[in-house]
């Protein structure tokens, strides 16, 4: 019965996803994200575990048997259920500088994960897909140029519209294993796929200058490794509490990438796809993802209240984007720290009112950002709130979170963004392949 409802919900969300994606492609709507995602190979995209998405935390130290955890491989070893989860988001980016403003929206598929408990609560494997960086942006540039140096001809006005999409996505496969009652370790290997596409449209005020559409594509792949640790201790300050710590280390990943630039041109009277020849250094390049250390501390005050804090460090100063050294020079080390609290009133054995049927989350995080432009860090302050719809008949759930953030600054000729939107995760947790013991 529960399966039927959750499958219905999944069908609904996929229908919306497909519809929105098709609509975005047709009308160029809801496919542009942060202005700053246009730098390098995109802005880092966190993998939030569904359980902690409402706090804006990755969940590296927060275990839940009701939903998958994508951030810490060690937690896969604790899984008692077969977990499946799919998450989507709809974000609004209202950007402004000292002269202009813009509003963009991005509907995105965030992640998919399937966890199978090979040995229940001891050994679990996971297969997941999630973005690592995201480069979804629209950039409109207006400018003028002098057509011929040294001769006073009328300046030519031009406008370019660049629509960027893609980034680095990761297919991850790994396992978690419980070494001891309170200590679990995990490892995953990720296939990092870089697919960065920029569609550029250029138009000119002088008709003798050909309007042009062309594509810039960067592609490549590489494999990376991630290690996880999880430990917990019960009854620290009381009989019903628990401390848990979690940490992951993601090793740097170097992608040998290739760039191509192509456009359709009229050559000898025929419409022809022209691949621009570039010298070797421009065609082949290196995209290096930074090392990441993610740590968290979770305190379960009791079965109803959970506090969690996380700190993540990414060594972006070591990251590379050889296709644009100027943009690579903007990279700087990134530190993100956050804190959140959850309240689980539905866990009571006694039925409460309507509002006791849900899970509530609240959190805040500060991100120094991975870019330093014109001497300014592109930092972000996020506020998160979430509500979970939990099935009492199964461990499945739906997590819906609201996010509001302020990124960047208008000073130093930079762009300030007000970010808000929703993230939604459907989490399926069922016994599969196992006959329940009570039967």
């Amino acid at each position, binding site marked *: 019965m529960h399966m039927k409802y959750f499958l219905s919900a999944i069908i609904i969300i996929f229908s919306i996803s497909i519809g*929105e994606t098709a609509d975005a492609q047709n009308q160029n709507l*809801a496919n542009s994200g942060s*202005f*700053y995602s246009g730098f390098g190979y995109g802005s880092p995209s966190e993998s939030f575990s569904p359980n902690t998405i409402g706090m804006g935390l990755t969940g590296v130290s927060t*275990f839940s*048997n*009701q939903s998958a955890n994508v951030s810490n491989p060690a937690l896969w070893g*604790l899984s*008692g259920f077969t977990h499946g989860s799919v998450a989507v988001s*709809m974000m*609004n980016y209202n*950007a*402004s500088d000292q*002269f*202009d*403003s*813009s*509003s963009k929206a991005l509907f995105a598929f965030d992640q998919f994960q399937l966890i199978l408990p090979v040995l229940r*609560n001891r050994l679990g494997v996971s297969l997941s897909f999630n973005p690592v960086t995201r480069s979804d942006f629209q950039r409109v*540039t*207006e*400018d003028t140029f002098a*057509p*011929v140096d*040294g*001769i006073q*001809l009328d300046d030519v006005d031009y406008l*370019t519209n*660049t629509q960027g999409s893609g980034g680095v996505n990761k297919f991850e496969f790994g396992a978690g294993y419980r070494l001891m*009652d309170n200590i679990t370790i995990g490892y995953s290997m990720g296939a990092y796929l870089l697919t960065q596409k920029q569609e*550029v449209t250029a138009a000119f005020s002088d008709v003798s*200058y*050909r*309007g*042009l559409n*062309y594509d810039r594509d960067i592609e490549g792949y590489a494999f990376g490794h991630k290690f996880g640790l999880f430990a*917990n201790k019960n009854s620290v300050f009381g009989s019903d*509490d*628990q401390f*848990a710590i979690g940490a992951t280390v993601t090793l740097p990943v170097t992608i040998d990438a290739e760039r191509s630039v192509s456009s359709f*041109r*009229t050559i*000898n009277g025929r419409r022809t796809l022209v691949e*621009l*020849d570039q*010298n070797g250094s421009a065609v082949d390049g290196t995209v290096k993802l930074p090392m990441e250390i993610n740590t968290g501390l979770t305190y379960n005050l*009791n079965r*109803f209240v959970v506090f969690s804090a996380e700190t993540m460090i990414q060594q972006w100063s070591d990251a590379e984007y050889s296709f*644009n050294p100027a943009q690579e020079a903007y990279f700087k080390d990134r530190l993100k720290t956050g804190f959140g609290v959850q309240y689980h009133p539905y866990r009571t054995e006694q039925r409460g009112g309507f509002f006791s*049927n849900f899970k509530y989350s609240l959190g805040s995080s500060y991100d120094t950002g991975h870019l330093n432009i014109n001497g300014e860090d592109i930092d972000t302050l996020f506020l998160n709130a979430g509500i979970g719809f939990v*099935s*009492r*008949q*199964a461990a499945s759930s*739906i997590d819906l979170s609201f996010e509001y953030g302020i990124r960047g600054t208008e000073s130093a000729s*930079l762009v300030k963004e007000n970010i808000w*939107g929703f993230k*939604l995760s459907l989490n399926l947790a069922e*016994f599969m392949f196992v006959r329940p*013991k009570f039967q």
Partner: protein
Amino acid sequence: MYLKNLQTTTGRSPEKMSNSSNNKFLNSKGSRLSIAAFLLLIIPLIVGCESPGSVGEGLGPDGSSVTTDEYSVTDVSSVEENFFSGGLSYSAMGYIEDPVYGTLNAVAVLKPVISTSAVDTLVEGDTMTLRMVFNSSIYGDELSVSDYEIFELEDQWRGNELKYNEAAPVDFSSKVAEFQVADEDTVEVELSAEWVEKYSTYFNSDDANRDSLYTREFTGLAIVPAETNSRVKFLRHTPADEEEDPAITEFRIYSTEFDEEEDEDVEVVSSLGLRDWGAYVVRSDEPDYDSGNVLHSIDRLMEVNLNLPFEDLQSKNIVNASLIFSIDRSDEQLNSSIVRPDVESIRAHTFSTPPADLISEIFATPARFGANINEDEEIFKVDVTQYILDTTYGDVNAAPLYFSAQSVNGILYSIKLHDNAAPQDRQPRLIITSVE
């Protein structure tokens, strides 16, 4: 079987969840999922519309920018070929000694038709005139008065075969008329009775081969300028305006007929169009130029070979390629008393295979590229983008570009363009504009 802390982290063990089903929750489960589904559906509605904006000018996260690259044009040479000079819109007549572009001696040749619906027969007493209608263009001294004589020609000629720099075969022993031209736009001169009589033998003939005899035997008239003249004018053969100014050069017959109403003879004027026309124009004593590239619409082209850096260009998203030619007026300004027809444009032809008869091909085919003069900067900016695209990205070789002045319409156009001896900003060059 289960971890001790599982109760804490999940609130209940899986067994409890499985065993905890009751009817109340079954009833409430649907409502919670309905709420979730409702929220799912309204999310896209909540999200506002997009509005593009140019935030972050100068930061350029996408790297899109327009760049211009400049390449010297060094392979430029003159091609001296004589264009056609007959059957055009205008026919030159006059004489000018131009210190800048040489001496021009232009003899216009004309031949009237031999039939008109208005006149059946030329009879004794009828007279004929040549009514010359001039184009406003002048080459020479605007204020001068020119002397002309009209002679018969010695040899046959065909207008569509005439070329410049061929001497006119004038029979100077058979003078037909003489006249002067100042600043009139129309001059009518009576032709000699001897010539009219000669012409009337063909006009009045009933022979079946009258037309072929006329073509073969009657040579027409040559308007020969005196070498004391200092101006060339241009006979008009096509109307300046079909409605407002339809007059063109023609012959006229003046005859008399009896008007019964008036009971007296009245003069009747009948137009006689041109069967063929053209001009013999010879340029001589052209000075040697120390620098620059000179174009004459009658006999000189400019061949330009662009030695393109293909490896460089093939990496560019080319949106425009323009050839820049600057005009050198320095010599003309030293001889400012001479007015010359304005060259308002240049044009370029290119051929995938070298033509056997370059001039015929240029004369018969439309120009592939062209540019009007920029009068403020005294330059021609020729858009050759398609040529560059075809040669850069296509599999065709870069064929020469043949530039000519204005057009071949009978008016004598000349212009001098700077070459690479000029200051850098006046040298010929190729400007490639691309988007990166």
